[in-house]
Every structure is written in structure tokens, then in C-alpha cells.
């Protein structure tokens, strides 16, 4: 700790011999992303996620659903310190979003930028630091260091305004002890606050110790009215580990506050899955009102970075399918396979409702696949080795108490032993263990427009579809060591009249040049009408002779199509299609990269029959891993 402080305060009184500013080492968000994604899921109970954002370079912030973190941290010589800062930033963001801090802020501060906001941040930030230590005591040491660091970095801040003076007085106070009111009053007086207002600061220690942010908020707002807030005043320097308040993101009134207790347990998810709420999960601070019938297609990351992203405008929507009970015309049916659809509002099937057509796969050069193989050779080798362990084995067990056959060797030996006067053996049988696999896999891949988006909307990252491509290559390579029958279907569509299935690999096709070319040629399409795709795959699986049939869905978002298939309707039809599959003996499982998937996946697939991949690039390996785990004898 001392050493750490010394490093942070070069030339400070404590360390006359310390060198001048030591060189810092940058740590990129991408290096910690995988761990942080899980970390934030655990701390927030899946309500929040983390994402790098250039706008967060000067300080993290949250909109109540995502914690935006700096793309890199370049403050410390030792990258381990940057890792700690990322961790504390994330935990801080979780508490900020889950304790009511944001709600308290949203109400009043939108119209009070400048000094009032700074004052609020100083007091509420201190309140939150203290909550953080009370909630997660393991972070106390890191937080204490970061407070000292923040204080050291404020040496350059010239203007000793009231918020600045208070902030420094607060950061100086040790977290382990209650605050000293007198010191705060004194600091405020030095900053030029009149005595009457300064006296109000006596209430700070109590307000900041309360688990509820309301008292802190009332106090901060009361004080904020007393300080002048010139419109053009420069924004105060941020405290590095604290998520800044971005009132413009909180413009919508908060609906309710999820308390720490309600967000941080897995308990509610252990219960029977419920129909999902129409609004996405996340903390209800910045959510737009949505009802199931509102047909706003919710592609995960619309347009921004996606090469092929679909423009989702209101104009090209048709009326909801349920209000337009028109069967497909003969022309619309021509050349298509027809599937029923479940209308949950009417609790009935709409017969021959969806027209599914096979889309000619875009074949072509296998080079992209070969490149993936070149780049990941050790990984592919490892996967193959793991899959070899799944090979069916015929094991002859000898010297058994009981079995299908006599163990002649044992009998002869026993005979000799008994002649020699030894005790007779009892284990005189042998038996053969058969562990046949006999599996058929139908791999169903979401090719909707959103798969064209860059991961985290950052063009330096891969597109989602690139990760899918890699996942398929790894799976296919690993499966070369097994005899499992498998097919890969891509699906997309645009309305029930044009559902499209791309046969990347048919069950009876070999994984070779042609299939590799098709995997290389996979491209994002339009929408995500999952129901008909599931029904198509189920039917294909049932035509395969196999003991175990598995439908494995790879998805990046909830069911969605622009003729009314969004929201609850799409989820209900998909759920019904999956139930149909399971009733016919087809097991169903899903991998998804949608951070909000916990809202609807349990309802569609059932508990523990889906995996949310928090860190999108990890999907590539997870697909093969999941398949291996699902089919281990």
C-alpha cells in the first residue's frame, strides 16, 4: 500500500527519493473483457453488461443497462493496477445502477448541470464508496488505493470550488471510519461557503452512512440550490474509478428501483420460467415503453457498425399478423414448404402460415475457412483430441460376478487353483459394454441482419457472423473424428411469406470443399423468425435414424420479424415450436450471445438448456464445447 501510494505521488513528501513519473503501461479492455463480462453478470444477477466505449475514455458511465468502460487504461506502470481499476469501476457501476443512485439523480439533476451536479457526484460518490465497501468488503483495499490515487491526480485542479473542496475532504477521510462533520464544515468554509449553509454539512456523515441514497440525495440537492451554478463552468475533473453521471441518459423518469437483494440472487431464476416481460431486462431507468403488440423490431445492435445491417424503420412494417388473418395465396405457397404457426393470442395454430424456401448457399472460395484453420491450429487439434474421447467404445470386462458369457480364462485358472487347494474364485463371467452414440445433430444458425454488426459496435472487432463462422468450422473439424450425423442450417427471412433456410451442410453431405465454401460464404440476411426454422429442422431430424436427436440453435437475439413476429408473439411461437420438437423426442439447446437472453431463453428452452455466451468471441469455442458436454456418455 505504501509503495503504491509512493508510486502515485511522485515527489510527494513521503517519498523524496522516488523517481520522476514512472512510465505507464496501457491495458486494453479487450484483454479483460471475458472476465469482466462474467464478473458483471455475477454481481448484477445478469441485469447489466459491460462494453468499451470511446465516450468513456475520461470515466465510465452507465445508462442503467450497460456499463460503458474506457477502451484502455493507461494510468499505472503495472497493468495489474489497471486490471483492479477495471474491476472496481465495474463493481462501482453495478452499485450505481442497482442501488437507486441513478434514480435519485435522474429526477432532479437533469436541469442542474455544472456545480450542482458536481456537488451531487461528490456526496453521492462518497455514499457509494461506502456502500461498496459494506457490500463487497474484498474491494476495500483496492478502493482505498484508488481514492488516494484520485486525490493525488487532483493536484492539478486549480479552482477550489465548493464541490472540489468537499470532494477532496471526503476522499481524504478513511473509509473504515465514520466521516468527521467538523472537517467537512471547515473545508466548505475555506471554499467560501456561508456559515449557515456550511452548518448543513453536519448532516453529511449520517446521510452518507444510510443504505438508502434518499437522505444523501435530499442533502445534496439542498446544498446544490445554495451554490451558484454558472452555465459555462468547466466540468470538474473525474474521479477515475467512479462512473460519471450522464443526466442526458437518464431523462426518462425511473419506474422502480431494483434493490441489491432483488438483483443479486439467482433465486428467482430457479423458479419455473415465466413468460418474459415485454420490456427487456435491465434496470428500468432508460427503457422505452414497449408492449408485445408494439412491433418495433429489436435487433440487438441495429445498423451502427454493421456492414449489412437492416434499416429498421417503422414504415416497412405490415400490420400485426394476428390482425390480418389472410392465408397465403397459391402464388406465395408455390415452391415452398409450409409450416403452421402458433398464435398465442388466439391460442390456436394458424395452418400453413409460413412459407419456407431453401436459399441457394453462397458457395465460393474455401480460403476464409482455411485461414481460420491456419490461425487456430492448436485449438482445432485440442478440440479433436477432446472429441476423440467421445468415440464409442466396446469394452470387454473380464472376471465379473455376472455377465453375458463365461470368462474361460478365469474358469481355467480357477480350476487349477482349486486343484491346488486355493480358495475358489467367484468372478467367472465376462460381459461387453456397448456404448454406441448414434446421434443426429441439427445445427440451426441465426443469419439475421444483426449478425452483420461488429462486436460491441466497434469496427476494429470481428462481425458477429465471423465468430459464428469460426464456431461452425471448429465444430465441423472436431466432428471429423466422430460418426455423428449432422446438418447445418442457416435461417433468416422477411415476413412469413419469405422464410429462408440455407443448407450449409445436409445430413448426408461430407464436410469437404463444398461445405467449407458455403461456410465461408455465410452472410447476414434480414430477420429472425425462429419458429418455422425450428420446425423445419425438427422435421429433418426426425427423418434421420438416430437414438438421440439434438437441435442446437445459435442465436444472437430474440425472435423477430417485421410482420408482427416481435415481442411476445415471436417468443410464444418459438416456444411452441420447441415444445413440438421435444414432444417428438428431439432435444433442444441454445447458445446465445444476447446479453438479455435470460429474459426469454428459460421460457423457450427451459432452465439449463441454454447457455449465454457473455463474451462474443468465445462463442467460437463454446459451440464445440457445448456439443461435447451434451453428448458425453
Amino acid at each position, binding site marked *: 500500500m505504501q509503495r503504491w501510494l509512493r508510486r502515485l505521488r511522485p515527489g510527494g513528501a513521503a517519498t523524496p527519493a522516488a523517481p520522476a513519473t514512472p512510465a505507464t503501461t496501457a491495458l486494453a479492455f479487450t484483454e479483460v473483457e471475458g472476465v469482466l463480462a*462474467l464478473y458483471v453478470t455475477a454481481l448484477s444477477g445478469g441485469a447489466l453488461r459491460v462494453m468499451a466505449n470511446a465516450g468513456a475514455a475520461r470515466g465510465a458511465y452507465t445508462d442503467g443497462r450497460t456499463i460503458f468502460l474506457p477502451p484502455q487504461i493507461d494510468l499505472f506502470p503495472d497493468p495489474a493496477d489497471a486490471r483492479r481499476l477495471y474491476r472496481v469501476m465495474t463493481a462501482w457501476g453495478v452499485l450505481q445502477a442497482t442501488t437507486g443512485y441513478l434514480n435519485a439523480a435522474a429526477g432532479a439533476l437533469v436541469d442542474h448541470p455544472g456545480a450542482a451536479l458536481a456537488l451531487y457526484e461528490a456526496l453521492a460518490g462518497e455514499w457509494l464508496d461506502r456502500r461498496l465497501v459494506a457490500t463487497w468488503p474484498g474491494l476495500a483495499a483496492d478502493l482505498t488505493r484508488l481514492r488516494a490515487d484520485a486525490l493525488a491526480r487532483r493536484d492539478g485542479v486549480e479552482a477550489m470550488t465548493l464541490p472540489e473542496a468537499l470532494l477532496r475532504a471526503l476522499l481524504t477521510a478513511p473509509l473504515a471510519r465514520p466521516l468527521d462533520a467538523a472537517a467537512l464544515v471547515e473545508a466548505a468554509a475555506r471554499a467560501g461557503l456561508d456559515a449557515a449553509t456550511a452548518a448543513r454539512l453536519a448532516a453529511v456523515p449520517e446521510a452518507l452512512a444510510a443504505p438508502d441514497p434518499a437522505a444523501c440525495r435530499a442533502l445534496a440537492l439542498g446544498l446544490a440550490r445554495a451554490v451558484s451554478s454558472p452555465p459555462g463552468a468547466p466540468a470538474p475533473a473525474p474521479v477515475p474509478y467512479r462512473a460519471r453521471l450522464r443526466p442526458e441518459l437518464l431523462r426518462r423518469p425511473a419506474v422502480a428501483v431494483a434493490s441489491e437483494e432483488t438483483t443479486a440472487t439467482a433465486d428467482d431464476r430457479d423458479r419455473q420460467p415465466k413468460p418474459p416481460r415485454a420490456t427487456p431486462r435491465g434496470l428500468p431507468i432508460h427503457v422505452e415503453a414497449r408492449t408485445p403488440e408494439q412491433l418495433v423490431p429489436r435487433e440487438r445492435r441495429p445498423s451502427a457498425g454493421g456492414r449489412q445491417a437492416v434499416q429498421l424503420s417503422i414504415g416497412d412494417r405490415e400490420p400485426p399478423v394476428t390482425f390480418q388473418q389472410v392465408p397465403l395465396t397459391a402464388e406465395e405457397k408455390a415452391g415452398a414448404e409450409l409450416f403452421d404457426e402458433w398464435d398465442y393470442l388466439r391460442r390456436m395454430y394458424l395452418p400453413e402460415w409460413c412459407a419456407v424456401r431453401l436459399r441457394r448457399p453462397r458457395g465460393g472460395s474455401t480460403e476464409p475457412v482455411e485461414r481460420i484453420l491456419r490461425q487456430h491450429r492448436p485449438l482445432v487439434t485440442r478440440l479433436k483430441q477432446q472429441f476423440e474421447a467421445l468415440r464409442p467404445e466396446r469394452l470387454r470386462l473380464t472376471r465379473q460376478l455376472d455377465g453375458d458369457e463365461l470368462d474361460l480364462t478365469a474358469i481355467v485358472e480357477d480350476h487349477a487353483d482349486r486343484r491346488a487347494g486355493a480358495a475358489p474364485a467367484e468372478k467367472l463371467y465376462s460381459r461387453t459394454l456397448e456404448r454406441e452414440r448414434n446421434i443426429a445433430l441439427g445445427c440451426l444458425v441465426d443469419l439475421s441482419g444483426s449478425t452483420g454488426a461488429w462486436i460491441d459496435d466497434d469496427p476494429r472487432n470481428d462481425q458477429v457472423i465471423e465468430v459464428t463462422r469460426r464456431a461452425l468450422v471448429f465444430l465441423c473439424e472436431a466432428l471429423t473424428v466422430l460418426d455423428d450425423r449432422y446438418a447445418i442450417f442457416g435461417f433468416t427471412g422477411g415476413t412469413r411469406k419469405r422464410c429462408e433456410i440455407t443448407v450449409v451442410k445436409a445430413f448426408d453431405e461430407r464436410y469437404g470443399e463444398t461445405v467449407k465454401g458455403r461456410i465461408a460464404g455465410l452472410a447476414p440476411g434480414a430477420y429472425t423468425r425462429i419458429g418455422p426454422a425450428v420446425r423445419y429442422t425438427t422435421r429433418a431430424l426426425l427423418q434421420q435414424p438416430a437414438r438421440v436427436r439434438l437441435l442446437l440453435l445459435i442465436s444472437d437475439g430474440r425472435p423477430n420479424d417485421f410482420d408482427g413476429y416481435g415481442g411476445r408473439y415471436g417468443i410464444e411461437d418459438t416456444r411452441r415450436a420447441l415444445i413440438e420438437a421435444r414432444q417428438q423426442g428431439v432435444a433442444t439447446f441454445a447458445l446465445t450471445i444476447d446479453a438479455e437472453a435470460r429474459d426469454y431463453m428459460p421460457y423457450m428452452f427451459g432452465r439449463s438448456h441454454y447457455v449465454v455466451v457473455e463474451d462474443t468471441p468465445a462463442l467460437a469455442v463454446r459451440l464445440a464445447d457445448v456439443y461435447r458436454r451434451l453428448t458425453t456418455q
Partner: protein
Amino acid sequence: MSSEQQEGRWPDASIAEVAEEPYYLPVGDEVEIFEAAYARQLPVMLKGPTGVGKTRFLRYMAHRLGRPLVTVACHDDLTASDLLGRYLVRGDETVWIDGPLTHAVRTGAICYLDEIVEARKDTTVVIHPLTDDRRRLRLEKTGEVLVAPPEFLLVVSYNPGYQSLMKNLKPSTRQRFVAIDFHFPPPAIETEIVVHETGLDRATAAALVKLAGLIRNLSDSGLDEPASTRLLVYAGHLIRSGVAPRRACELAIAAPITDDPTVQAAVRDLVATVFPA
């Protein structure tokens, strides 16, 4: 033949009179449900993740009901004969030895098939006639048909989180049981359990439970098995023996639940979030 000799022939089973009352803290109405099922001779399925207290609960119930408990750890080499019994060659003659299930039926014990999905499906079928209202057990090799006495009860355990398709319980088997669902206990009760089992102070036990809650939030992010109450108890024991809490949690919780390096790192971060160095 005495029970002990009998047991020596069972590589996968054990028999116990539960003389001392095992520690068990009820979470809901499971005790009443079990007693009702026992009184009505309904087979029981204990459903829930590993380490949640299913086996402890059953030992507690066996003690309460005053019945011996025959436990069979199921695995994929377990045959019907392993459950029912077999003829053994002894010198120039053959001797019939009851298997654990047959023994439990004859003596009116509680027979517990632990992790029944691990057993092969053709093995599982032998329990079917025992689980309907005839409650009969047919021993083809001896030609006997045993009728289970009222004291006999068949109990199986089943972990629905098990994700291998190759190990799923057939509906025809599942639907023969009254299922009691086991979840991880609420924090206050789980803390109480950790305190009782380890003698740990309440604050540290509560911190362990808090950590488990965070880790369990990762269960649909690819964690094979969430941190169980049993692992918390192990960590608690290590702490009691003087191992630093962070280290104890890494050894007893983080390492056992996953091999994935990223998940491990995240779990270690959670440990460091809850426990000071």
C-alpha cells in the same frame, strides 16, 4: 447372512441404521411431504443440483422414520443383477446373494438410488414394478416374487442441471415418483448450515453464502455446476483450520466448479470482491 456380510458383496452400495439424528435444517415443507409420501407408500424423487443437501435430507428422514437406509451410488456399469442379487459360486455349490434393492425390500428399508441418471436405462427398468401400486419385485433367477412391506420406500435422486443428453431420465421412469425440488437454501438458512457444519463465525459464513450467490448468477453462462452448499462447507472447514479465506475459496470453490480459465479468473475476482486479502 448378516447385513454386513451382505454389504461386502455390494461394491456400489452401503447400508446404515441412522442412529444419531443428522443435522438438517428444513427449507420448506419437504419434511411433511416426505412423511406423507412415506405413509402412502409413494416413491420419492429428490431433484436438485449437487451438494444441495439431498442425501443429508434423506438420512435425516431415515432417522426420523426409524428405518435403515440402503444407498446405491449409480453408475453406468451398474447392472440389474447389481441391484437385485446373483448366484455366486462357492466351492462346488452356488449361493444366492441378495442385491441392495432386494435386501431393502425384504427388510423394509428405505432404498436410495443416488444419481439415478448415471445408471443404464436397462437397469433402471427393474425398479418399475416396485413403483406402481403392486410394489412387487420379481427375481427371475430364483423365481421369487417379493411384495414390498409398507415400511419399504424407494427414493431416487436426480440432478436436472446435468446437461448430457445421453443421461436423461426416461419420462416413463420419471413419472413414477413424487418429486421434491431442492434449491439452494435462502441466505439466512444456508449461513446457519455453514455455521453449524464448520463452527465458523456467522459473519464469515454469511460472506461465503454471499459469494455463492454471486457465483450462482453465472449458472447459465456456462458454469457446469454452481457453487454448492457442500463446497461452502469445505471452504468453511479450511478457513477454520487457518487457511486465509481468499485462498480457501479458491481451493474449495473456484477450482472445483470449473476448468475454464476465463470462468476461473472471474470466480477468483468474485472471491477477491467478497473477502479482503
